[in-house]
């Protein structure tokens, strides 16, 4: 333990690190040269990373081939618990290593899908998403860490996968999947996992998989329920066979509005990873033609038999009209009357529902408070939202029960001013984002409260423009 011995030990370590760094650089150079040798047209350099993925799957195996079965010693050790499974074994593991899988969406479903597919050793894993990590994602999107809040989800997800398994090829697609780029991206993969959160993307991805003849592992989760099936696989139905007509917009709930228990997409995502592994490795019986329905509250999983491929299906039927050209210009958001991005929802899409005179900004409302104007603030959010946070003094009367409780507003207004004054209190209405409050004001104005005003932009505007300490959710 003398100081000399210690410093020479340090020097050794530093020398060793330097030596390894040089070796690492050499290896990286060799990898780049080998990658450059792969047949690639010069104009494809823009898609360099993406085009590498599938073609390189084989070289991962070839470059290090040392044992007769095609698995490297590192692969044998790393995946030994797979190889020990009589129903899986070397062949299935090799099939995995030769497969390329695209995960669309790096959210609640995509997190476990990507983590399991990376760790299990698929040859190439691509992830598409154009979103950034937000703090309120982390309770369910378990692939992302706090340090990545504000950064691209794809970067975060790929870094997490790379940290787990450096043997596999990882491809970042930091863009939103649209009809214009979907064919190019999806065509580079063998299997597609739909881990998106919206209806138009689901139709678009299914159509694209039919056109390119790719199996599609489709999962969905909301609230305390989840659903899972495999489309366009071994003669089974596609999404349109099951749902030829999109549902009404009001039936399309989103996690950002309706909530979701974090573990529910986790369960469905894990099962999606399982189905993807089965399709890729060729083992077992997939959920093609069947649907798994998960109810977290009652701990029940139901597997149901669904209809087969429809001969009349416009995407995969006998006289299907869908072509790649039609696909590229098809407007899925218009078809489903529903946006692909969640962010659009936070804008006030009903901004012209009530007249300007029936509206007030959050700042002006704050002025009224400062002027001690006698008033009642009616919060029309559901009761469980009101319990999360509310402006002090506001009264909760959810929009859904507004009409039958309209008389209680009268008494609240009367109680707000001293009886003798003869003045009338004003009535302001607030909700989370300023949409429901407009519906409420419209209803109130028809039901004896002609002066009711809605606070533009709701509590989000209040938090943004008046009270930054007011929690948003």
């Amino acid at each position, binding site marked *: 333990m003398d100081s000399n011995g210690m410093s020479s030990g340090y020097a050794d370590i530093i020398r060793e690190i330097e030596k390894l760094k040089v070796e690492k650089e050499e290896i990286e150079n060799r990898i780049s040269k080998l990658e450059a040798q792969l047949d690639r047209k010069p104009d494809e350099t823009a898609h360099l990373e993406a085009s590498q993925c599938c073609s390189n799957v084989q070289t991962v195996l070839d470059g290090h081939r040392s044992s007769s079965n095609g698995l490297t010693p590192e692969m044998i050790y790393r995946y030994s618990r797979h190889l020990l499974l009589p129903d899986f074994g070397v062949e299935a593991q090799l099939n995995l290593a030769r497969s390329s899988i695209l995960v669309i969406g790096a959210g609640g479903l995509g997190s476990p899908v990507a983590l399991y597919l990376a760790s299990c050793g698929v040859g190439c894993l691509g992830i598409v998403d154009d979103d950034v990590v937000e703090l309120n994602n982390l309770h369910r999107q378990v692939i992302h860490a706090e340090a990545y809040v504000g950064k691209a989800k794809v970067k975060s997800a790929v870094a997490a996968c790379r940290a787990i398994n450096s043997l596999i090829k990882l491809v970042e697609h930091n863009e939103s999947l649209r009809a214009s780029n979907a064919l190019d991206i999806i065509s580079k993969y063998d299997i597609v996992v739909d881990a998106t959160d919206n209806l138009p993307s689901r139709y678009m991805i299914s159509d694209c998989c039919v056109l390119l003849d790719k199996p599609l592992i489709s999962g969905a989760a909301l609230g305390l329920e989840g659903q899972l099936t495999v489309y366009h696989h071994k003669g089974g139905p596609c999404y349109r066979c099951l749902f030829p007509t999109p549902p009404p917009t009001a039936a399309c*709930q989103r996690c950002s509005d309706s909530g979701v228990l974090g573990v529910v997409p986790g369960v469905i995502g894990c099962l999606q990873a399982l189905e993807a592994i089965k399709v890729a490795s060729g083992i077992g019986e997939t959920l093609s033609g069947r649907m798994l329905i998960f109810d977290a509250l009652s701990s029940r999983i139901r597997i149901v038999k*669904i209809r087969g491929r429809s001969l009349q299906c416009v995407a995969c039927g006998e006289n299907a009209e869908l072509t790649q050209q039609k696909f590229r210009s098809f407007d899925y958001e218009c078809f489903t009357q529903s946006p692909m991005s969640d962010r659009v929802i936070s804008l006030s899409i009903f901004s012209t529902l009530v007249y300007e005179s029936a509206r007030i900004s959050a700042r002006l409302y704050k002025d009224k408070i400062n002027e001690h104007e006698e008033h009642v603030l009616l919060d029309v959010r559901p009761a469980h939202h009101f319990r999360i946070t509310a402006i002090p003094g506001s009264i909760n009367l959810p929009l859904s029960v507004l009409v039958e409780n309209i008389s209680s507003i009268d008494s609240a207004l009367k109680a707000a001013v001293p009886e003798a004054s003869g003045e009338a209190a004003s009535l302001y209405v607030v909700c989370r984002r300023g949409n429901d409050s407009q519906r409420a004001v419209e209803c109130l104005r028809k039901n004896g409260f002609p002066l009711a005003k809605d606070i533009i932009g709701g509590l989000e505007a209040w938090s943004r423009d008046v009270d930054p300490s007011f929690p948003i959710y």
Partner: protein
Amino acid sequence: MHLTLEFGGGLDLLCQSVKIHEVDVPLMSETGKMKMRDLLAWVRTNLIKERPEMFMKGDSVRPGVLVLVNDCDWELSGGLDMELEEKDAVVFISTLHGG
């Protein structure tokens, strides 16, 4: 006819958030049989408490709703014309899109 009806994927919200309903449905057609068509009409009248357009469109379920009789898609057994039997389990489930 005794049936077990289940609502999922948010359809339970249309019937006071109750998911499972054990019901006795009177036979409607003169033949003494009950078709899915009759059951849907009965459900709409007796169980759906709000926004019926979120459950039905015309005389069938709205787009995006799967109907499963004894864990099997009703499309495989005749859809609206399917004949129900005593103690059948009928599930109405709205497709989810979240993630």
